[in-house]
C-alpha cells in the first residue's frame, strides 16, 4: 500500500476555490457576495455537502434546460471534479480534455491539467500523466502544489526513475509533511530495487525531519521500522537496533519494531536482551503477525540462553495459541459470507464518508472479530476502492428506489408525468442490484482468501513450534542419558 496524506478530499479541493469566483453577476447585489445563478447555487448547495451525485444531476439538468450559462466554464471544471469524486474517471477525463481546448485562464488550465494527470496515473497511463503535468506552467495554490509534486514523484518512483524522483524531492516547495510521504515511498522503492544505501538515506531524512503531528510521527515510526529491517537483512545489528529503538511503543509500527529489535539483539548474541522486546510483544494481541512470530521467537531465545525447560513450555504456549487462533479464524467464515459483512462496513463508512487517512478508516471499523482480524486488508487500497464502488452503487440503488416509489403512488403527480420512464428506471434498478451484489461478492472473496491465508499461516507456525519443541525434547533426553559432563573450569 502506497502512503499518502489525503485520499478523497483532494479531488474536490481542486475546484472549491473556483466555484464562486467567476461568472457571477454583481448587478443588483446589495451585499458583498456576488450573485450566483440560482440554479448553479443549487448545484453548489449539494456539492458543499459532498453530494456529488445530487450536484451532478442538478448541473446536468440545468445545462439541458439552458440554465447557468454565466457559470458554464467554472461549471464544467466543477463537473469534472464531481465526476472524479463519483468514481467516473473516464467521463471526468473527457470533460477535462474538452475543457482544455477552450479554457484560457492559466490557473484553471493548470488545475485541469493536474486532474488529467492524476486520473491518467490512476489508470496506469503514467507517460501521458507525466506529459500532462509538464503542461502546468505556474505554481498551484495551497496544497495543490504539493499534490502536483507528490504526483510527479509517485509516477517517477513507479517508473523506476528513482534519481529523478529524488531530485524532485530535493527541489520540494511547500509543506514538508507531504514530502515525507513521497520520501517514504521513494525510500521503500529504492530498497526493493536493491539500492539499500540510497533507500536508507531517504528514510533517515524522514526521521530527521522533525515531524510533530500524530500522523507524521506514525510515518516516522514506519520509516524507522523499514530502516531497521533493511539493516537487519544486511546483518548490521547495532545500526538496526538504533533505528528500531526510535519507534514509539504505542505506534502502529511498534509490533514489527519490537520483533526486529529482538532479532537485532539476538544477532549480537544477546539472547537475554532479545527476550525483553519479544516478551513484551508476545503479551500483545495474537491476531498480529509480529506477535505470532514473537511466540516462536521467545522460546528460541530462551533455548539459546540455555533455559531449555522454559523454552519447551513456551513452545507449548505458542502451539496452544496458534490452535486457538486457527479455531477462532475458522468460525469467522460464516460471518464474512453474510451480506451484512459489507453492509456494516458501508454503514460505518457513511458515518464519515471521507476519511482522510487509512488509519482513520481502520479506526472506524465495526466492532466485531471479523473486522478486527481483517483490518489491514480492509484498509488496503484495493478493498477500499471496492467499498467506494459499493457505496456509489448503493446510492444509485436508493435513488432509483425513490423514483420507483414515487411512480407507484397513485396520488403522486409524478406518476402521470414520468410514467413513460418507469421501464427505464426498473431496468437500471435491476442492473444496479446485480452489479452491487457482484461487487460485494468480490470483496467477500478477498476477505475469505485472506482468512484462509491466515489459517494456513497458523498451521505452518504450529508445525514449526512442534518441530522445535520436539528437538528440545530430544536434546534434553540425550543430555539426561549421557553421563554428566565435567563442570567447566
Amino acid at each position, binding site marked *: 500500500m502506497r502512503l499518502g496524506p489525503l485520499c478523497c478530499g483532494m479531488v474536490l479541493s481542486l475546484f472549491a476555490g473556483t*466555484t464562486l469566483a467567476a461568472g457571477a453577476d454583481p448587478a*443588483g447585489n*446589495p*451585499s*458583498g*457576495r456576488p450573485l*450566483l445563478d*440560482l*440554479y448553479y*447555487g*443549487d448545484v*453548489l*448547495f449539494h*456539492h*458543499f*455537502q459532498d453530494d456529488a451525485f445530487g450536484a*451532478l*444531476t442538478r448541473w*446536468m*439538468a440545468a445545462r*439541458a*434546460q439552458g440554465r447557468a450559462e454565466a457559470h458554464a466554464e467554472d461549471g464544467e471544471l466543477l463537473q469534472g471534479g464531481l465526476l472524479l469524486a*463519483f*468514481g*467516473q*474517471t*473516464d*467521463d471526468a477525463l473527457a470533460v477535462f480534455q474538452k475543457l482544455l481546448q477552450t479554457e484560457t485562464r492559466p490557473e484553471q488550465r493548470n488545475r485541469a491539467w493536474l486532474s488529467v494527470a492524476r486520473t491518467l496515473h490512476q489508470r496506469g497511463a503514467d507517460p501521458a500523466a507525466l506529459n500532462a503535468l509538464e503542461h502546468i506552467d505556474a505554481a498551484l495554490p495551497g496544497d495543490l502544489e504539493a499534490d502536483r509534486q507528490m504526483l510527479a514523484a509517485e509516477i517517477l518512483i513507479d517508473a523506476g526513475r528513482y534519481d529523478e524522483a529524488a531530485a524532485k524531492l530535493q527541489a520540494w516547495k511547500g509543506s514538508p509533511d507531504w514530502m515525507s510521504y513521497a520520501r517514504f515511498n521513494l525510500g521503500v522503492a529504492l530498497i526493493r530495487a536493491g539500492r539499500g544505501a540510497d533507500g536508507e538515506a531517504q528514510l533517515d531524512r524522514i526521521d530527521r525531519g522533525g515531524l510533530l503531528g500524530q500522523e507524521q510521527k506514525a510515518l516516522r515510526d514506519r520509516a524507522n521500522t523499514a530502516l531497521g529491517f533493511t539493516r537487519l537483512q544486511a546483518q548490521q545489528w547495532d545500526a538496526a537496533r538504533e533505528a528500531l529503538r526510535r519507534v514509539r511503543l504505542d505506534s502502529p509500527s511498534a509490533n514489527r519494531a519490537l520483533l526486529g529489535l529482538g532479532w537485532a539483539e539476538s544477532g549480537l548474541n544477546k539472547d537475554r536482551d532479545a527476550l525483553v522486546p519479544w516478551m513484551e510483544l508476545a503479551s500483545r494481541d495474537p491476531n498480529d503477525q509480529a506477535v505470532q512470530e514473537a511466540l*516462536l521467537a521467545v522460546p*528460541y531465545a530462551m533455548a539459546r540462553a540455555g533455559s531449555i525447560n522454559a523454552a519447551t513450555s513456551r513452545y507449548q504456549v505458542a502451539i496452544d495459541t496458534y490452535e486457538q487462533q486457527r479455531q477462532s479464524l475458522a468460525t469467522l467464515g460464516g460471518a464474512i459470507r453474510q451480506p451484512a459483512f459489507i453492509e456494516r462496513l458501508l454503514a460505518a463508512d457513511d458515518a464519515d464518508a471521507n476519511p482522510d487517512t487509512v488509519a482513520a478508516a481502520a479506526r472506524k471499523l465495526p466492532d466485531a472479530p471479523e473486522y478486527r482480524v481483517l483490518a489491514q486488508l480492509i484498509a488496503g487500497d*484495493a478493498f477500499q*476502492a*471496492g467499498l467506494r*464502488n459499493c457505496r*456509489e*452503487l448503493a446510492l*444509485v440503488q436508493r*435513488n*432509483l428506489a425513490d*423514483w420507483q416509489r414515487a411512480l407507484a403512488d397513485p396520488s403522486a*403527480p*409524478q406518476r*402521470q*408525468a*414520468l410514467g413513460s*420512464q418507469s421501464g427505464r428506471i426498473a431496468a*437500471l434498478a435491476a442492473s*444496479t442490484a446485480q*452489479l452491487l451484489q457482484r*461487487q460485494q461478492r*468480490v470483496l467477500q*472473496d478477498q476477505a475469505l*482468501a485472506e482468512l484462509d*491465508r491466515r489459517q*494456513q499461516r497458523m498451521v*505452518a507456525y504450529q508445525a*514449526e513450534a512442534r*518441530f*522445535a519443541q520436539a*528437538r528440545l525434547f530430544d536434546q534434553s533426553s540425550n543430555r539426561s542419558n549421557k553421563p554428566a559432563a565435567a563442570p567447566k573450569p
Partner: protein
Amino acid sequence: MIDRVALRRGLAATALLFAAAQACAQDTAASIDAESQNLKRQALELNRDLLVLQEKNLFPAQTQLSVFVSADLGIFFELQSVKLEIDGHEVAQHPYSPAESRALVRGGTHQLYIGNIAEGPHQLVAVFKGRTEHSAIRRGFSMNFDKQPGTRLLEIRIRDGEARQEPAFTGQVRK
C-alpha cells in the same frame, strides 16, 4: 534450531499462488469498475431526464414559481428550518441539517419550493428558525411580488442584520 528453509520454500509457493489469484481478482475489479462507470453514467442521465421532464410536465414555464434560500453571513447563524407560505397557504417546510446550513453559508442556494401560481400580485411569508452564537431565534419575513408570464424566481437571502449578531432577511425577484 528451526529449519526455516523448508518452511520459507513452502511459503514462497503459497505466495506465487496468491499472486496469481490477485491478478485474477484485479481483472474482476477492473471489469466491475468499467461496468459501474457505465451504469452510474446511465443513472446520472436518467436523473437528468427525469428532473427535466418532471419540471416540464408538472411546472410549466407559464405558471412556474421557484423560491430559493441563500446566505451571505459574517456572523454565526445556523439555520434550522424554514416554513414558506404563499397567499396564506403553507406550501413548503424544510428542516435544515447542520451540513445543509453550512452549505448555504459557503455559498450554495437551496431550491426550497417549486410550484405553479396564477399571474398577478401575491404575498410570500417565510418563517425562519435557527440559532446564533448566543440564542435561538425565530424570525418572519414577508414580501409582495407580481407573477408575470414565464418562470418566476425568488431569492430570500439571509445576511448580517443591523442589530449585533442577528441575521436579517431580504427578498428579491431574480427573473
